[in-house]
């Protein structure tokens, strides 16, 4: 992608640290959801969090802070021990009734090694019984979107890690989801590839008007991507603070070297240190 020269970097703005604006269309409502394992481990203390439609929210924290647990509860892969999770005002299991769709992108590409890129991307459509011709058309479209049209007949192991992750994202997008859940999707990639995919992801988010929950342990990734960062801490896992990244879109690479970027990163860093230092209230 070539940066648009007509687009100048926006004027610096002070970071905003205010309560969430009143949700317009609530997409995700997490109501005192907590997770305690049968052996007594408190993986996640009760969390209250709401996302409105079109938000890009990052769950940021060290390992063991329950960010993946929270994401999996939103997806319905884990049941909360207590509390409720609503997607468009319906319980997670009844998402289909709202006419909305959700897609999940895992930490690893989780592709079927025996199937071509095309078959891998087509999988959710095949499972849903979408007619073959329509499915093929949508697969071609979404492969073009992630820039992998030329590789549609390749097997996953013939692709680099970054390309495999693109296939995984294409598989997520092919169902035209409204909510995209991503569990440290670029964590295993080198930094250059990760920056590229981050930028591409933002572009897709804007184009498709997605609601995204993105799990990461990278402060820089969180600042660059998010409209809101939810800071979490470990032992026990809990939400400690929220930050709004009030930076207009589209965000270019030069945002990453701007003073306000450093300022945001600094705030998150301090918050992370504070959270690790303090003992949680019982």
């Amino acid at each position, binding site marked *: 992608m070539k940066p648009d020269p007509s687009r100048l970097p926006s004027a610096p703005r002070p970071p905003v640290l205010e309560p969430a604006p009143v949700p317009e269309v609530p997409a995700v409502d997490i109501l005192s959801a907590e997770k305690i394992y049968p052996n007594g481990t408190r993986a996640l203390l009760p969390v209250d969090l709401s996302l409105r439609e079109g938000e890009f929210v990052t769950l940021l924290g060290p390992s063991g802070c329950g960010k993946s647990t929270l994401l999996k509860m939103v997806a*319905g892969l884990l049941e909360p021990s207590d509390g409720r999770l609503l997607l468009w005002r319906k319980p997670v299991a009844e998402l289909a009734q709202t006419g909305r769709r959700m897609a999940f992108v*895992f930490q690893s590409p*989780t592709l079927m*090694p*025996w199937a071509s890129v095309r078959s891998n991307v087509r*999988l959710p459509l*095949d*499972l*849903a019984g979408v007619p073959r011709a329509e499915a093929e058309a949508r697969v071609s479209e979404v492969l073009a979107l992630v820039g992998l049209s030329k590789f549609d007949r390749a097997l996953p*192991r013939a692709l680099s890690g970054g390309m495999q992750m693109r296939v995984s994202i294409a598989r997520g997008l092919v169902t035209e989801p409204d909510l995209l859940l991503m569990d440290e999707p670029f964590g295993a990639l080198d930094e250059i590839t990760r920056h590229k995919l981050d930028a591409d992801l933002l572009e897709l988010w804007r184009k498709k008007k997605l609601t995204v929950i993105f799990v990461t342990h990278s402060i820089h990734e969180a600042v660059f991507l998010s409209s809101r960062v939810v800071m979490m801490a470990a032992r026990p896992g809990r939400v400690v603070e929220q930050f709004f990244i009030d930076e207009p879109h589209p965000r270019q690479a030069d945002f990453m070297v701007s003073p306000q970027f450093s300022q945001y990163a600094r705030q998150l860093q301090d918050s992370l240190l504070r959270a690790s230092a303090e003992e949680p209230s019982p």
Partner: protein
Amino acid sequence: MSPAPLHKVAPTQKPPVAWLHRPEVQRVVYPLLVGLFLLALWQGLVTGLELPPYLVPSPGLMLQTLIKDWATLGLALWVTLKITLFAFALAVVVGVLISFLFVQSRLIETALFPYAVLLQVTPIVAVAPLIIIWVRDATLSMVICAALVALFPIISNTTLGLRSIEPDLQNYFRLNHATRWQSLVRLRIPSALPYFFGGLRISSGLALIGAVVAEFVAGTGGTGAGLAYQILQAGFQLNIPRMFAALLLISLTGVALFALMAWLSRRALSGWHASETSHE
């Protein structure tokens, strides 16, 4: 401007034995060389030490006997091969069905797996007479014996394979509300294939061993006589060259079965599974 003259690149001087460096050629040539060397050594020792053919026949004599007695031995080979293949097929079908049963629930597997092990550890020589008494048809009884020997690797490998699914891929299927059937066909069976083929390779050899052992125990003569019976007979008659010829046929059959299974495995898995992609 005239283009700079291209340097005529002489075709890379390949050494005259370049074909020897190709791994697929090496796979055939190297074992063959070892075999030829051993045969020559054998022939030389027998001739040099003047060993009598009723103790150790020379390879030449063995081949002569094989050709001379081909009418008998070929028929016996056919009988043994038939028992082996039927037994192998039976073991594959039954083994796969049992594996599917096992993966339906941990309870079923926990309850039944020890009996599969029991089947495996009981020596077939000890069970064969019983089966031969119970089953009237001699061929069928031998097929059952051989199948019992070949069954366990199929069960254990396929069960392991059907369970060896990447957890997140399984989660992905769950998130997309895949039915049990969809998960089985699109996820479990392809994931199990590498393990299944591993089981096939072990089992094909075991089916042959089982068939030979069953023939020994059954001792069936006449038209239904297999290679094991030929070996027994040749032993009684001190016809050692024929014994060796029959032995050779059994070994070659085993190697051929193994090669066939390896080829099948390569065909099915090449490209995607680490065990069958080239190491270049």
